[in-house]
């Protein structure tokens, strides 16, 4: 009886895995088949207005990149606070909870919030509004990973640092963070990968532009918003471009994730 139950259970698990993988494989297949068909050099050398994706790809990377650059110090510092300064106080727990809540905040709600505080007062969609939305989505992820990673740093290390008379700042920067560096880096890359594929918070904040732009104060080219616009056009070429964009976006996210994995594996060895 026990053995039969066991057998059934194993079969079920394997089957579940197969079903899940089947659908995911289907999506990936669709994406590759549709996306690769339109892939050409022109996609990378021309802007959207000329039937390429150069400006929107670069635009998406710039917005996510700027959000990351601002998000890293804020996220890491907040994580450091939770582990190194906050102790076990109620406040620390409260902030930890807040961060978790923010991590699951619906991205479209973040978009409406930014719309209300940036787009309405300044009067137009802008790259900065997009950056802010992505920043808000990203910070809690970095906080969480930093928090988790610092938790793994052995107390002995910290004590040893203090024992030789180093200040808390030095211990944190040179010992604790260095020890947890790989993990934090992975967290950052994953956070970047998470926001780079976001559409909902950008729809009404950055908008999207058909032209080349590096000016974050104006409507900014966005790959995800453009995919959304293109895929719904009554023009086969534009729809094709949308799928190509979707394929490139996924490829981009996958590459970042792979780098993240590689970085963390490398250090663990």
């Amino acid at each position, binding site marked *: 009886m*026990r053995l039969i139950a*066991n057998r059934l*259970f194993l079969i079920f*698990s*394997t089957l*579940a*895995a197969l*079903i*899940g*993988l089947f*659908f*995911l494989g*289907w*999506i990936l297949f*669709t994406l590759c088949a549709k996306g690769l068909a339109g892939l050409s050099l022109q996609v990378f050398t021309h802007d959207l207005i000329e039937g390429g994706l150069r400006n929107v790809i670069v635009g998406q990377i710039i917005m996510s990149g700027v959000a990351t650059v601002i998000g890293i110090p*804020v996220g*890491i*510092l*907040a994580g*450091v606070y*939770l582990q*190194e*300064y906050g102790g076990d106080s109620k406040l620390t727990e409260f*902030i930890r*909870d*807040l961060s*978790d*809540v923010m991590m*699951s*905040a*619906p*991205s*479209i*709600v973040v978009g*409406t*919030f930014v719309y*209300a*505080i940036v787009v309405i007062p300044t009067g137009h969609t802008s790259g900065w509004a997009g950056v802010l939305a992505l920043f*808000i989505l990203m*910070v809690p992820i970095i*906080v969480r990973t930093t928090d988790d990673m610092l938790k793994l740093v052995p107390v002995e290390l910290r004590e040893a640092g203090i024992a030789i008379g180093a*200040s*808390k*700042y030095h211990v944190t*920067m040179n010992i604790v963070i260095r020890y947890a560096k790989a993990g934090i880096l992975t967290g950052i890359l*994953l956070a970047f*990968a*998470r926001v780079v*594929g*976001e*559409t*909902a918070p950008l*729809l009404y904040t950055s908008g999207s532009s058909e032209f080349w732009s590096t000016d974050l104060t104006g409507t900014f080219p966005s790959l995800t918003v453009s995919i959304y616009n293109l895929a719904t056009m009554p023009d086969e070429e534009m729809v094709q471009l949308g*799928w190509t964009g*979707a394929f490139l976006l*996924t490829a981009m996210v*996958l590459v*970042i*994730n792979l780098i993240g*994995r590689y970085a963390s594996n490398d250090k663990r060895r």
Partner: protein
Amino acid sequence: MELIFKKLSQLSAGLLFVILAATTLVLYWSAKPAIEAFGVGFLIETRWGVEEPLVAAGGQLESSDELTGSDSTDGGDDDFIDDEDDFIMDDEDASDDTTREVYGALVPIVGTIFSTLIAMLFSIPIAMGIAVFLAEIASSSIAKPVGVAIELLASIPSIIYGMWGLFYFGPFIASIFGGNTVSLLVAGLVLAIMVIPFMAALSRDAISTVPDMLKESAYAMGATKLEVIKDVVFPYAKAGIIGSIILSFGRAMGETMAVAFVIGGIYQFAGKVTDPTNSIPVVLANSFAESSGLSLSVLFYLALVLFILSFIVIGVAKFYFLRRK
């Protein structure tokens, strides 16, 4: 240096609180006209954007008379045009309206909850199956590449799930279960497929934290794999697994792009799972740009409701499940 560093880290932690508080306040403030107009009744009102006569204006009789009276003309008379756009930024003209638009959130709220529940119903067993398969069943030469693949799939942008759902999965489901290609069921299943890799990857991580020693001693006592997983692995990794489910729940509930194309987008309850309905994020995405004045405020109200809903889910889940460790 020491002090600055400490202050900075405090500041950053405080910023989290500021952002969250600001979000709530700004949403509330933007939603205020709608909250004043519809009150809490908004949450249980089923109509959306339907005009009803304003009893207070006392113009009921008059207005219906006027409408029938204008029937005979069919030339340049455009009295029947909804003039919402004309009055943007000059509200004083709108005040002599004899009707008002009623908005209610119940349909999208119910749609959001049910699509998320359907997603959970399907994704939890499958994701757990995958996690167990990867961590305990498959040999490492299979588990490794499949594990990486799952994690990578977790990062596919959600808009792609939406496009796939509309073109391929919706028609597929309709051919099996009948009904339409866009429905509550399709939306729930697309969400399920979207969160599976995410949930599986996190649960797998939680399961792999179980010390080998624990498992081995159980095996040594003659336990089967099922028993080991049921009695040793799951209890040990419970917090992590539940955490992964909660995060997936939150993600499914707030998802916009994957659902926008496949839920049907109509303000009507789904009598059957194969009927179309609506969800809060989809309403926001569909009407945000086109709205102004009160109808925009209504959307902020809706966003606030969604925000609070997700807040509650996370809060309750954290309190009940995650604290017990």
